[in-house]
């Protein structure tokens, strides 16, 4: 049996998140790429930003070395964001991109939620996918980058979502 939206575990997660705040991205191995995206739920005011620090593993695939979120959201939204970010941290970009609404509900212990609140639960996964899509389009699909990833390329798709200027990274 699933859990309801008023389950204490949801409120607990939202009030005591592990992955909220971009200070969390300080330290650790210097990422090769930082992917960022933001999104909102148009009807209720939820706004989330997701930042992903990406590194290439020895086998060559891109992985999410570190991740964090921040923003304004209801309890469901914040709990879902924390659960999603926890899940994708350390995983490959492909695994992370597969996170959807159903996966998010599973990560929250089998959450059962109606249509009117689905958007609150799904926002983090949607924003995550935007960040990953932009990163994949601009740098990953072509395999090893043929240009200096530290140089800003005007006119590249996803400029808004992908910040490749390590020298001026700010969290």
């Amino acid at each position, binding site marked *: 049996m699933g859990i*309801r*939206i*008023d389950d204490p575990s949801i409120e607990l997660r939202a009030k005591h998140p592990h992955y909220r705040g971009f200070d969390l991205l300080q330290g650790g191995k210097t990422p090769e790429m930082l992917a960022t995206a933001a999104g909102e739920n*148009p*009807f*209720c*005011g*939820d*706004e989330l930003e997701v930042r992903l620090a990406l590194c290439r593993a020895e086998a060559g695939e891109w992985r999410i070395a570190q991740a964090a979120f921040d923003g*304004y*959201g*209801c*309890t*469901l*939204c914040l709990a879902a964001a924390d659960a999603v970010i926890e899940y994708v941290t350390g995983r490959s970009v492909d695994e992370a991109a597969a996170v959807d609404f159903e996966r998010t509900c599973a990560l929250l212990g089998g959450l059962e939620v109606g249509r009117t*609140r689905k958007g*609150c639960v799904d926002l983090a996964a949607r924003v995550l996918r935007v960040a990953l899509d932009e990163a994949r389009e601009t740098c990953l699909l072509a395999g090893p980058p043929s240009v200096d990833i530290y140089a800003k390329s005007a006119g590249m798709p996803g400029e808004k979502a992908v910040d490749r200027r390590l020298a001026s990274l700010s969290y």
Partner: protein
Amino acid sequence: MDNGSRPFDRARYPILKRRVGVHGGRPLIYLDSAATALVSQPVIDAQVRFLQTSCANIHRGAHQLAEEATDAFERTREQLATFFGVVEPERVVLTHGATESLNLAARGWAEGSLCEGDLIVIAADNHHSNIVPWQMLAERKGLSVAWIPLTEEGLLDEDAWARLLVRAPKLVALCQQSNVLGFRQPSLARIAAEAREAGAVVVMDGAQSAGHEPVDFEELGVDFYAMSAHKMGGLTGVGALLCSSRVMEDLRPVYGGGGMAARVDASGWRAAPGPEAFEAGTPPIAAAVAWSAAIDQLKAAGLEAVAAHTRALAERARAGLSALPGVSVLGHRVPRPFESLVSFTVGEVHPHDVGQALDAAGVMVRAGHHCARPVHQACGARASVRASFAGYSTEEEVEALVSAVAQLSAAVRA
């Protein structure tokens, strides 16, 4: 005030017998009438009766049922004209709701009447339905859009309006009653009059006021007035656009097809005469017929009585909520009565969480932007919780709302 005497008899609303909550143990406290009003049994019966006895298409066919259906549909049009003070029923276009009505004004009139560079002015307290159609039109036609901003209190900025008036706007979009701010804008009538005197067409969204207070379209002096049946006790899926004589002449059909064309052949088409030109396809006949029953209900209750009742409840809610620590009522600094709704925030608690907590107590409210983001931005709120009242609402329900919010407020501060 509540001695059991209310404009609407609660016994006529079957849904009010429902028990809600996880175990069905709580009475239903419905405070979301601004989203959609509850439907009484007589209105339900009117729809069912039509479907059971006269279910046929209208303006078509030559049989008895078609005649009955057409008569019933047109009776609603005539009744709306009388009820809202439109001299000719032909200037009442039946639509699928206020949103379609406003889009009809935009695409059916403004599209062909405004030119590149013309200025549209939009009041910032409007619902998105009286904003987006004008923004879309501006994109298509290269029109300019300017706003009558709101002050921090939520009042239309009259100085800003005076500056806009000098720019000779061609169309001004106004809201008769905000779906977020409870009070009626004191400068609304003057702005509408000045706009018209300056040669602008005035489009007014009446979705939250039609059926809540007496409205006389001719006295209002606007060109387009939009409303929805389900906001006044009718069914969803039907509404109306009241049109002044001068804009009716230049109103053009937006949807083409059956019922709206007098002639169609290989060379082209010609619009049907009258409002049917703007009512393409089969309209929501049963819902329109049922709307007549909702109007009868309003007439029996008396709009003045309905307005007084909801105003008293809204003011009670405003006072009760404003007294709670951490609770902020949007528009509370304006010294005018709240007519039928109260929007508020509870500290930093997300409105969805407030709504969820109230829902657990059986209190049904709206949480979010209410399709009115500019209003929230003007008031410095990301979103809000809205409680709204109707002729069947009670003082006890207001007390339940305030009590539930008080508990939440205390829990947040603890």
